[in-house]
């Protein structure tokens, strides 16, 4: 029961490094990855049916293409692509989950993206189906996929200017964090801090809107 009282970990320290003694299931895949991408993949990690590698965001296409086209690896199916925000001052991650017939484990590729300049090459050249995933990541997190020819909002309206799944996104009625902490802000609209919603220069959106005028 001791770990129930465990304090929340700092945002940067998520996840435990486990040793490379992978379960027998994924052992062959881990060896293969170390052999092919020893210099590219900075971190290897496994759990019961997932093998994970961490790479620099700028080299994601290079690695994903190799993983897809290498006949021994043959990760032909992009199961999922999602973004994770590790908070202000930290980083974004674009996380790809890949599937291969030849290996009994999911492969998770975590590509690190800088939070100040959130740019990463697009994977739509490898899988057309990455389009909606990337549009969603752009919409929710504001990550810009260089080379994506349809990078616009998918859920929010086109003139929306913020990114709602970032960790520092606050709703005006988020009582715990707003200047009106302690009162019910819905009853007191004058306490809503709307300025940050209208003035914040969302990366990408403004450039798009002005480029076509």
């Amino acid at each position, binding site marked *: *029961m001791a*770990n*129930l009282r*465990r*304090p*929340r*970990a700092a*945002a940067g*320290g*998520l*996840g*435990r490094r486990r040793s490379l003694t992978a379960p027998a299931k994924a052992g062959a895949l881990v060896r293969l990855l170390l052999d092919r991408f020893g210099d590219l993949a900075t971190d290897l990690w496994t*759990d*019961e*049916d*997932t093998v*994970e590698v961490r790479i620099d965001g700028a080299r994601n296409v290079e690695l994903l293409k190799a993983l897809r086209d290498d006949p021994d690896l043959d990760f*032909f*199916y*992009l*199961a*999922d692509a*999602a973004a*994770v*925000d590790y908070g202000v001052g930290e980083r974004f991650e674009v*996380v790809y*989950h890949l*599937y291969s*017939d030849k290996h*009994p484990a*999911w492969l*998770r590729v975590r590509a690190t993206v800088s939070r100040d300049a959130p740019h990463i090459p697009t994977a739509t050249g490898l*899988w*057309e*189906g*990455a*389009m*909606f*995933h990337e549009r969603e990541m752009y919409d*929710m997190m504001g990550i810009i996929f260089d080379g994506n*020819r*349809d*990078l*616009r*909002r*998918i*859920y*929010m*309206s*086109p*003139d929306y200017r913020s990114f*709602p*799944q970032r960790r520092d996104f606050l709703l005006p009625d988020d009582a715990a964090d707003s200047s009106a902490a302690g009162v019910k802000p819905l009853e007191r609209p004058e306490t809503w801090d709307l300025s940050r919603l209208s003035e914040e220069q969302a990366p990408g959106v403004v450039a*798009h*809107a002005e480029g*076509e*005028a």
Partner: protein
Amino acid sequence: MTSEVRIPDPLDLDREEEARLRAAAGLAPATPTVRDYAGFESVGLPDRPPQTEREREVYTLEEGEMLVNMGPQHPSTHGVMRLVVKVRGEVVTDIDPVLGYLHRGIEKLCENATYTTVMTYVDPMDYLASMHNEHAPAIAFEKLFGIRAPRRAEYIRALVVELNRVFSHGLMMGFLALDMGGITPILYGFINRDEIVDMLSAISGQRMLFNFFRVGGVNFDANDEFFSRLGTWRANVLKNVEMSERVITDNEIFRARTIGMGTLSGKDAISLGVSGPNLRASGVAFDVRRAHPYSIYPELEFEVITHSAGDSNARYLQRIAEIKQSIHLIDQIVDKMPHGPVQAQVPGIIRPKPGRAYGAVESPRGLYSVYAISDGGPNPYRFRMRDPSFVSLQAIPKLMPGHLIADTMAVMASFDPVMGGVDK
């Protein structure tokens, strides 16, 4: 020779009146609008410059082309979605799906909920596969927390999940026929669904949003009412499925409107991320139940069914085959079901150690997966859901150019998207 009598259109009168007033006021004549050419307003043209290359491509009209909105309240979009369809006459030349009308931010809600209450938020996502929606987070959270559900709980999970698949596929058969004008099959589909839903309501207490799965087990054990309803249903189900099959499969109109429609090759389907029955109907044998076996599927006997044609008809036949397969699985599960507890011992507030876990299940629409990150707190740091209909929807703009407008609905229904899942 009779003189030509022109009956003025009231709208034209308005225009003439406007032109007269403008001339009297010394203003320039009004510029002609789309209405002057087409007879009605062209809709869907955004009043802002296009943001991307693709958007410019869709919204640039050539001679003879027109944009038509299908939705957001169109009955055949199976929810609230808008398709901006570019047409030349009756022929579709391009499609731009516009999503977000049903976006509730479920991922964000789940990140503010505890691991137990997440199960209530994911239910209304893909509302025809609520059991599957709960299964994937349950798997991911159990991996995070490092526990396993008792064996009886795993059997009950597999049972309810397969029941859910049967009624979801049954409804798909009905909706597909409904979108082509056949009203009868959907009634059979709903009769079948009601029997299963009553059964699931006996076990979970809810008819639609079951809230049945728990981290480390299920909420209730299977009771007598459940098994009694299951027996009654099982006695008649094959006969009923064959009955609706007879109504649809060999119908001449149905065949004409599905065979060769929306043909998706296996290669394209993989590239587009299409999964589930839609992918298997294109000849790719990818079924998560076999590819990454979870729950008790390694103990059950079944083959991954595929069809090779890849058209709407193949997707329909794939569903029928999977209904029968699921019934076969249900038989096996009931035969083998062990006794025992249905819930592992877990604390009231679950705080997994920091880590990441990926849980994937085969939902009626395909690969439904959850990627959960824990930071040691009582709620997930990040909760990501991959919904199969969201990804499969990308096939529609790829398949439809060259088909008739009326076939757009028929092909879309064959993919069986559910907007609750698409919009999260």
